[in-house]
């Protein structure tokens, strides 16, 4: 009697956990053998480190792996090439207007890094590193972020013990509409605005309003009734037209001193990275890269040694947006 009650209780608990009242099973499929499970069971718990395999790696070994297998995308110092993810730095920026979220500044748990690199990196050839290599490259990335010293050795025990700087930065909860912070709405139906409707952000005006802030689009306030409208039939151009002559002048002044067959900038004997911006054809062909380097990331001109202005960057952006003709 006692036994059957406890059996029933177990069955019930199981059914509840599974969220179903039916006890019917079908018997399809094959039992997963321990060997089969071992091959696929690659997850590591980020918080506890459960699942971290045997093996070890040093920062120095990791640097070698990193330079061969990772740096081409993530940069020698983890700074990220182009739009590839930045892996290092950004500490102290989480409350800044533009935060930099990296392993060092944002990730709460170190074992997550092992789990992710082992399953997904290097991007073009995942699951090709040995566990020792993963430990080593993880040690190197943590060292790049000043989280572990240069002589650190990472293994299952030491990695689980690493305390990440942003460890306590996450509020974990099952967020619902009651707990999410955007809940001040009311469904007003009539006369819901105290004043006239104002445009606070206007994509079309992004390039045209010269006194725009750095973020580009806040501050142009247009009254509802007085907002400018285009001619009744013709399309209003989305961006003002920029002539190539304007573009060429800027590039000649700000870029071609370095990016030319024969650079005039002291210290440069050849065009950096082979990028030459000294003829109209070359400038047009490089439009996309010019946009990336001089308008978006603003990495160029290097150190802004040629004193390029924001207005010039905007103009280049408008030229590219208009088809780079």
């Amino acid at each position: 009697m006692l036994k059957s009650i406890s059996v029933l209780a177990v069955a019930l608990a199981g059914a509840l956990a599974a969220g179903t009242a039916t006890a019917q099973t079908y018997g399809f499929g094959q039992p997963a053998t321990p060997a089969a499970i071992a091959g696929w069971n690659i997850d590591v718990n980020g918080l506890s480190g459960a699942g971290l395999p045997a093996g070890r790696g040093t920062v120095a070994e990791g640097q070698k792996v990193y330079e061969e297998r990772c740096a081409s995308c993530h940069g020698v110092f983890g700074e990220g090439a182009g739009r590839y993810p930045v892996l290092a730095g950004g500490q102290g920026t989480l409350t800044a207007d533009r935060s930099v979220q990296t392993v060092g500044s944002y990730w709460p748990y170190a074992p997550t890094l092992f789990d992710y690199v082992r399953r997904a990196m290097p991007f073009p050839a995942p699951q090709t590193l040995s566990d020792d290599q993963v430990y080593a490259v993880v040690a190197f990335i943590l060292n790049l972020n000043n989280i572990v010293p240069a002589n650190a050795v990472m293994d299952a025990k030491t990695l689980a013990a690493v305390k990440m700087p942003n460890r306590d930065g996450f509020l974990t909860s099952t967020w619902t509409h009651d707990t999410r912070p955007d809940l001040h709405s009311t469904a007003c139906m009539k006369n819901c605005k105290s004043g006239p409707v104002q445009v606070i952000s206007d994509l079309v005006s992004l390039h045209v309003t010269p006194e725009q802030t750095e973020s580009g689009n806040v501050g142009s306030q247009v009254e509802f009734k007085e907002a400018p409208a285009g001619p009744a039939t013709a399309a209003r151009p989305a961006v003002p037209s920029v002539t190539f002559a304007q573009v060429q002048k800027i590039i000649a002044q700000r870029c071609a001193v370095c990016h030319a067959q024969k650079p005039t900038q002291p210290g440069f004997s050849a065009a950096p990275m082979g990028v030459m911006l000294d003829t109209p054809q070359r400038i047009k062909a490089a439009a996309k890269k010019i946009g990336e380097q001089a308008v978006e990331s603003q990495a160029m001109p290097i150190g802004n040694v040629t004193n390029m202005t924001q207005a010039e960057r905007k103009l280049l952006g408008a030229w590219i947006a208009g088809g780079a003709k």
Partner: protein
Amino acid sequence: MKNNRRHFLQSAAAVTGGALLAGIAGSKEAQAAVQSGNLPPDVPSWMKKLGTGVEAAPYGEPVKYERDVIRRNVPFLTATTESSVSFTPLQDLDGVITPNGLCFVRDHGGTPVVDPVQHRLMIHGLVERPMVYSMVDLMRFPTESRIYFTECAANGGMDWRGAQMQGVQFSHGMVHCCEWTGVKLSTLMNETGVSPKAKWMLAEGADAAAMTRSIPIEKAADDVLVAWSQNGERLRAENGYPLRLVVPGWQANTSVKWLRRLKFGEEPWETREETSKYTELMADGKALQFTWAMLAKSVITRPCPEKPLAGKGFCEVSGLAWSGLGKVKRVDVSFDGGANWAPASLQEPVLTKSLTRFRIPWEWNGQLAYLQSRVIDETGYIQPTIVEMRKAWGSNAVYHKNAIYTWRVNQNGTVDSVEVN
């Protein structure tokens, strides 16, 4: 990164803006139609000869005139096309079902082409009977078909700092809505005997990202499907062929594609996709984690920047609304930037966690207008304004932007994306 997005979108605006205006009356195409000899009183040429035979297209494709109805991506947004997103052309779609070839695609390690005969689903961890299932095994279980929307948590994220997306495809196109068929996850949980100690489930994909997310047991046992069909046919490779999870109403990233493994455990795994990504950094430097549900959102899909107004007079304003918490209860539309609102009509049937089509008639007098829609779901949640959201969330958020969206209708009938106070 954010800078890159901004600049791309300006260029996208320029391109689509020019192209679409060529399409309205008075265009080259319209003039060609007049001279074609196919308009009344002439008999159209396609009535005077035989069409193609029934076997001409064993698997049908859209006619050539619809070749602009395609997914599009944002080349500047990501470093590679393998970890990137391609958006649903909401501006071209009617009703609520997204055709399979147009469902947005968000991959983290490219789209693998998985042989269904060689694909396996492993279920293990805190279960009595760890199992491996082939596709044939899975299809023997009792099945269900359900219509659900699937929305990327980052849908709309590019507009967090200001209007940047000149087009509804880019501002809202990381959502699709399909009829999914598969076995309920609860059936498989019962089958493998999930332990009462299990509180979490890890779902893992068979792609190059080996995508992994932790899902709490309550949700797993509730309405999650292990699906192999999408709108009546097998999944498309880019949407998870041959097997995927469908986690209704939640960040699409949890609906793991190419599903190969489910592991039950006591704690969440704290994977990279639920710590580094898919979390929300707030103004105070703290981040929200496990913000799974996609809260109510709506958008007008006609008119929109891609579909300008054709002329003064009657215009049916139409759009989509949805909520990850349940059914859409009401959608209001404003023509004056949110000062006054009127309820739209909802197309029946209104389904839970599904796209819902709304419509409202409008007489356009040729004047400047600011169109908005606002959804209220069955829980009473009201879609917030962007001003409210930004105040509460700060400037570093990426995900879960569900604010009311504004289209400015200009006097020439073109439509721009703007934000109003």
